[in-house]
């Protein structure tokens, strides 16, 4: 990606170039290809299709119809669950799926930014999962354990979430900076430690809900709950918090000195050192800030979406965050867009499972395929016979730094 060249072009020209030389076209084709393979998986494993395939040679139309029926019903249910439900009673109800999409996208934006920021400084933050967990733990503790006036309580709880994630991320950054230990190994291990720590805390007096056998915490106080926007959907104020975080990340990366240092370190740590930038301090700082954003995602889960703390509070969010940041090419705007896409997939899959019985795990397959295809442009170009050449973004950006 030659940024210098594209800076001299007009907006229209740049958009056209993006669209044709990789970037957007490649992304769209990757999504299409992943959805197609997902459809193949749905069709092949469908008992109806298998039933009709038994007599394929006597009546092939039956099989073809069953194939079409299987794939199209699954994907249209997914659309209905993610964007607009045309069968709904009112206009408001028809838009509830869109609100669900935004609800699922909310934590992804925060956690995705954590990974994206670290990418920019040349670090692979596999630890968003742990950062979300610790953020959620501290936010939850403030949420149900303290008694504060309404607005202050929310602010305090979100801040606690930020700090929790920031400390957990900061530990990884600090260890990397001080000892040169591979951040991937450290963050993977910290993820597991965070999960076990939360599991332990939920057995203690402080965190356990009274009279509950299951390890879950009390509900967060009303004064600390992120307010929901309307009935029938769990969409809450957390969306604006993470969007603010996205704006902050954009500002940090493109307008601040610290962001400039991060990017310099990410491009070339030796040059950055020569220029007087402390690589170690940048590593610690970027992991602290990024971890904090993941912590905010955790806070939004516990204060808004779930309302209480449990061991499954983070789900698979930390790993989705990595794919989101990759799909968004580690830019804040891209991360938000990718989060919306994955949020839509997730919301749609819930409806799809309910309506057609297609297991929700198809989302994991489609998501990972999208990222695989995006990571290997030559592969997608070969499939669609695109001739244009452009450098693979990920190979170049973070390829050589994982030593």
């Amino acid at each position, binding site marked *: 990606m030659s940024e210098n060249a594209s800076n001299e072009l007009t907006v229209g020209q740049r958009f056209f170039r993006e669209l044709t030389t990789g970037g957007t076209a490649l992304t769209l084709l990757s999504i299409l290809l992943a959805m197609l393979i997902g459809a193949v*998986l749905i069709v092949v*494993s*469908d008992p109806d299709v298998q039933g009709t395939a038994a007599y394929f040679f006597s009546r092939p139309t039956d099989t073809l119809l069953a194939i079409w029926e299987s794939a199209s019903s699954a994907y249209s249910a997914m659309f209905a669950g993610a964007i607009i439900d045309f069968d709904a009673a009112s206009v408001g109800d028809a838009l509830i799926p869109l609100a669900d999409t935004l609800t699922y996208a909310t934590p992804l934006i925060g956690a995705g930014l954590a990974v994206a920021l670290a990418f920019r400084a040349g670090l*692979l933050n*596999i630890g968003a999962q742990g950062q979300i967990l610790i953020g959620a733990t501290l936010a939850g503790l403030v949420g149900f354990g303290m008694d504060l006036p309404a607005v202050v309580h929310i602010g305090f709880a979100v801040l606690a979430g930020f700090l929790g994630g920031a400390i957990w991320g900061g530990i990884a950054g600090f*260890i990397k900076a*001080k*000892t*040169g*230990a*591979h951040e*991937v*190994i*450290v963050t*993977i*291990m*910290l993820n*597991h*430690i965070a999960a*076990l*720590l939360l*599991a*332990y805390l939920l*057995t203690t007096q402080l965190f356990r809900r009274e009279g509950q056998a299951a390890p879950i915490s009390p509900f967060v106080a009303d004064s600390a709950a992120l307010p929901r926007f309307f009935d029938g959907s769990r969409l809450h104020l957390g969306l604006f918090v993470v969007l603010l975080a996205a704006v902050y990340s954009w500002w940090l990366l493109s307008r601040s000195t610290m962001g400039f240092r991060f990017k310099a370190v990410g491009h070339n*740590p*030796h040059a950055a050192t020569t220029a007087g930038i402390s*690589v170690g301090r940048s590593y610690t700082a970027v992991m602290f800030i990024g971890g904090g954003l993941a912590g905010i995602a955790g806070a939004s889960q516990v204060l808004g979406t779930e309302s209480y703390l449990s061991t499954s509070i983070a789900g*698979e969010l930390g*790993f989705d965050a*990595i*794919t989101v940041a*990759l799909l968004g090419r580690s830019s804040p705007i891209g991360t938000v867009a990718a989060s919306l896409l994955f949020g839509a997939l997730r919301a749609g899959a819930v409806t799809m499972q309910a309506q057609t019985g*297609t*297991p929700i*795990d*198809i*989302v*994991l*397959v*489609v*998501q*990972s*395929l999208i*990222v*695989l295809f995006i*990571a*290997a442009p*030559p*592969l997608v170009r070969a499939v669609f016979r695109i001739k244009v050449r452009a450098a*693979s973004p*990920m*190979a*170049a950006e*973070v*390829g*050589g730094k*994982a*030593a």
Partner: protein
Amino acid sequence: MTQVATRPAESRETEAAVVLTRHWRTPIMFGVFGLLALVVFGLLPDGGRESTFGLSLRDDAIQLAPITVPSKLAAILLALVCLGIAAYATWQTYLGRRVPLWLSITFGLAFVLAFLTWSVAGSEISLTSALQGTLALSVPLIFGALCGMMGERTGVINIAIEGQLLAGAFLSGVVASLVGNLWVGLIAAPIAGLLVAWVLAVFTVRYFVNQIIVGVVLNVLVLGVTNFLYSRLLSPLKETWNSPGRFPRLEIPLLSEIPVIGPVLFHQTIIVYIMYVVVVLAHIALFRTRWGLRVRAVGEHPEAADTAGIQVNEVRFRNVLLGGALAGLGGAYFTLGAVGLFSPEMTAGAGFIALAAMIMGRWTPIGAVFAALLFGFANNLQSVLGIIGSPIPSEFMLMAPYLLTIFAVAGLVGRIRPPAFNGQPYLKS
């Protein structure tokens, strides 16, 4: 792009710095842990209680009487052994020698025994069944660690061990169910791991995509596919798709009659015996053959290896596949060796602990075996102690492998150095 293959100056600098500062870390850590053992396990607890260790199972040929020791005294003695080793290590370091691996292993054993004496004070634990449980939990870890090692020795980081284990578990179970033959299932397991590894190799070695990203994504992909197919086929049509059964335990005559370790090591399923062979072969192949020399050369200095006529990327590609096949075999242990059917996410993070075992074992097969056994022991112990009542919460026992690994990569425990070109693509200039 061609600069990618040159050795980064930063790592060389940090290495030099680390060598200087790390000098005293091993004896210091030994001393700290030894004192910890002395105070927490030995001096603090009340005296007068006894720890009992059973040495035989009910149907063993040779029955040994259980050993009963006074908890406080035994813990103090073992802690003193730890401190003695710390003193010896200090002396060795003073003379400018490296602390040998066997010393670290002895230290670990003494520390673990002191911990064990302390935690079972006032009750009884069967050492044989504890060791059996340890081995059972370690088998997939050892296969997984060998998988990671095959890749990393050539410079390809394999984060997808988890996915390869899961794929092996899934396919071996499904194939064994469909064909109705466990042996066919066992052959399918390495093929599943190999397929996942092939994707990893194509993306990382051929297209130079970042190794960690592909690894992470592959884990999610395998998880998604196996979960999806489980709820679609394996769960509703259990009879056809998910009833593979288990390999029987084979008793090796004579060897299995050795007290304590006999029933642990030589009364096992075929997969465990395959593991013994694979570990020995891997050790010999890596350190005693021309193949091993080439593999290590590719990981340490690909440019030099290339100059010497070794096809760097060819070697990497083949080794990643080999590793995948090993991890696939390890996956079969879950379905065909231990449980007898496939359940979703049954590997439960074993792939990451295997990664940790490989690092703790310093990228050597024998070291990885001991690290995996230690982690398996900790995991097994927390469930045993959960039953007899443990002085520390089980979650903290489960944390041990992860904490130890962070200490290890941060240079606090022993000297750990990955292959120099680990994780870096090799682009011929």
